[in-house]
C-alpha cells in the first residue's frame, strides 16, 4: 500500500511540474511583445518598458523561470497588474460563489446522473434507455450558456419565480442564497448529468456482461440486488474516474455559468482579467485550477487502493 502511494504521488509531481512549465511558456512565448500587448495600443515606449521591467520580462527566460518557481514555492502565484492585489488573495475573495456552485452541481449531478445511467443500462434498448440517451445527447449539444438563458427566460422572466441574476452569500441567509443559486446550479447540473449519465450507462453495460452477473442471476438474486450490489459496485470505479476527469470540464462550465448569472466568482475573475489583459491573474487562475484538478485526480486514484483491493502497482 505504501509503495503504491509513493508511486502514485511520485508520478503526480513531474506532471504538476510540466503543467507549471506549460503555463509559464504559454505566457512567455506569445508572438510579439507581451508587455506591449498588455499596456494597450495608446501606450508610449516608456510605458511598455516600465511594464516589461515590473514583470521581469526583460530578464532571460531561464532567470524568469527560476524566479517564478521560487515564488511559487513561497505560495506566491503573482500579483495583479491592475489592482496590485496578490492573485491568491483575489482568488480567496472570489472563491465562495464558485465553490458553492461547484459543490451544489456536483451533488445534484451525482444524485441524478447515476440513477439515470443505471436505469438506462438496465432497460438497454428499450424506451427508458432511448429517452435518457436522447436527453443526454441534447444535453451536451446545447451550450451551457444557452441552457442558462432558456432557464432565465422561463423561470425568471416569464414565471417570475426566481431572480434573474446576482449572488447573495450564505451568511445573508439561506433563502436569498439558494434563490440565486438554483438556476445556475440547475444549468450546470443539466449539462453534466447528460455527460455522466451516458458514462454511467456505458460503464454499467460493460459490467452487466460479466460472468459474475450471470452467476448472481443464476443463484436467484433479485434484480435490484444484481443491479446495485453486484453491478453498480463494480461500475463505480470507472464512474468515479469520469467524475474526476470531468472536473476540468466543470471548471469551464463554472466560468461560463458565472458570466450568464453574474456571479462574482473565480469564473468572473478570469473573464475580467482577460478583458483587462491582466496576465498574472489569468496565469495564476489557470495554474491554480490545474493543480486542483491534479489534486482531485490524485486523491481519487489513492482512494481506489482503499476501495478496490484489485488495484495495486
Amino acid at each position, binding site marked *: 500500500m505504501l509503495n503504491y502511494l509513493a508511486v502514485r504521488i511520485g508520478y503526480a509531481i513531474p506532471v*504538476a511540474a510540466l503543467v507549471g512549465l506549460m503555463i509559464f511558456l504559454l505566457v512567455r512565448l506569445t508572438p510579439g511583445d507581451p508587455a506591449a500587448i498588455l499596456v494597450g495600443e495608446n501606450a508610449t515606449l516608456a510605458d511598455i518598458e516600465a511594464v516589461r521591467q515590473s514583470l521581469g520580462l526583460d530578464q532571460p527566460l531561464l532567470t524568469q523561470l527560476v524566479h517564478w518557481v521560487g515564488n511559487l514555492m513561497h505560495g506566491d502565484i503573482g500579483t495583479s497588474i491592475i489592482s496590485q492585489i496578490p492573485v491568491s488573495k483575489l482568488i480567496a475573495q472570489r472563491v465562495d460563489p464558485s465553490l458553492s456552485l461547484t459543490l451544489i452541481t456536483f451533488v445534484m449531478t451525482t444524485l441524478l446522473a447515476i440513477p439515470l445511467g443505471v436505469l438506462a443500462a438496465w432497460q438497454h434498448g428499450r424506451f427508458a434507455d432511448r429517452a435518457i440517451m436522447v436527453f443526454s445527447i441534447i444535453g451536451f449539444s446545447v451550450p451551457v450558456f444557452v441552457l442558462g438563458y432558456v432557464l432565465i427566460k422561463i423561470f425568471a422572466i416569464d414565471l417570475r419565480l426566481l431572480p434573474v441574476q446576482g449572488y447573495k452569500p450564505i451568511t445573508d441567509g439561506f433563502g436569498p442564497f439558494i434563490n440565486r443559486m438554483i438556476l445556475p446550479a440547475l444549468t450546470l447540473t443539466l449539462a453534466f448529468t447528460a455527460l455522466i449519465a451516458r458514462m454511467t450507462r456505458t460503464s454499467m453495460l460493460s459490467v452487466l456482461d460479466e460472468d459474475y452477473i450471470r452467476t448472481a442471476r443464476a443463484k436467484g438474486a433479485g434484480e435490484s440486488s444484481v443491479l446495485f450490489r453486484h453491478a453498480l459496485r463494480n461500475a463505480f470505479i470507472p464512474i468515479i474516474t469520469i467524475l474526476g476527469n470531468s472536473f476540468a470540464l466543470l471548471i469551464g462550465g463554472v466560468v461560463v455559468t458565472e458570466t450568464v448569472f453574474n456571479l462574482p466568482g473565480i469564473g468572473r475573475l478570469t473573464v475580467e482579467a482577460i478583458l483587462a489583459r491582466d496576465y498574472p491573474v489569468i496565469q495564476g487562475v489557470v495554474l491554480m485550477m490545474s493543480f486542483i484538478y491534479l489534486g482531485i485526480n490524485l486523491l481519487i486514484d489513492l482512494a481506489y487502493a482503499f476501495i478496490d483491493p484489485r488495484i495495486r502497482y
Partner: protein
Amino acid sequence: MLQTLLSSVTRPAIARTPALVLLASALLLAIVVIAFLAPWVATHDPNAIQPAVRLKPASADFLLGTDSFGRDIFSRLVFGARASLLIGVVSAIAAILAGLFIGLVCGYYPSVDMLLMRVMDGLMAIPGVLLAIAFVALWGASISSVIIAIAIPEIPRVVRLARSVVLATRHEPYVEAAVTLGTPGWKIVWRHLMPNTLPSLIVQATYICASAIMLEAILSFIGAGLGSEIPTWGNMIADGRLYFQIKPSIVFIPAAVLSACVLSMNIIGDEVRDRLDPRLKKGGMRVG
C-alpha cells in the same frame, strides 16, 4: 431466417438508417450548402450597420429581424455558418493530425512514450476552456488563433486513442512479420499500424468538430472570441446578450441553429461509431 438475412443485405443502406440520423444528416448538409453559397443566400451585407432599423422584428425585408446595430440577423446567420463550420472542421483536422502523429510515436517508441505521455497528462490537467481563453487572450483573436486554441486541449484524447490502438496491435503477427523482414520503423507505423486507428479517429473527429463549434461560441460569449466583423454563431449570441431581456430571439435564433448543428454532428458521430466498430456500440467514446 435466410429471408431476413437476405433482405438486410439487399435493402438499401438508407432504409436501415434511423430517421433521426437521416434528419441530422439532411440538416448538416443544408448548413454546409448554405455556408458555401453564403453570398447568394444572404439577403443583406452581414456587416451593414443601419441604426434606423435596430432590433426590428422579422419582416419581408429582414427575414429574422435585425440586431442591436440594425444588421440583418438572417444574413449574419448565413455567413456565421461559414466561420463556425470552418473553425469546427479545421480544429478537428488539426487536433486529429497532431494527436495521431504523437500517438503513433508514443505507441511505437517506448523511449519517448514516458515523457510525451506525461506532457499529455499535464495538458489534460489544464481545463480546456481556460487554456483556450488564455491562449486567445494572449495571442489575440483571429481565426487561426481560435482554431489553435480549440485544437490544443483536444490533442491528448486523440493521442491516447491512437496510442492505445498501436499498443493493442503492435504485436499482431503481421506487424511482427514486417519487423522480421526488416521494414523500417516509420513504414511499419504508417502502413501497418496507422490504418487501425482510423475508425476511432474518424468518430473522434466528428465529436471534436461538434465541441469546437461549441467552444468557439463559449470564447465569443466570454469576450475572448472573434470580433463581430466576422460573424459567427457564437459572437451573434454574445452581441445579443445585452438585449436578451428586450428581444430574446436575438440570442435564441443563433443559439438554436448552433445547438441543432452540434446535435446533428453528435448524432452522426454516434451512428458512424456504431457502424465502424460494433464492439463500441453500447458505449460512448466521448469524454467531453
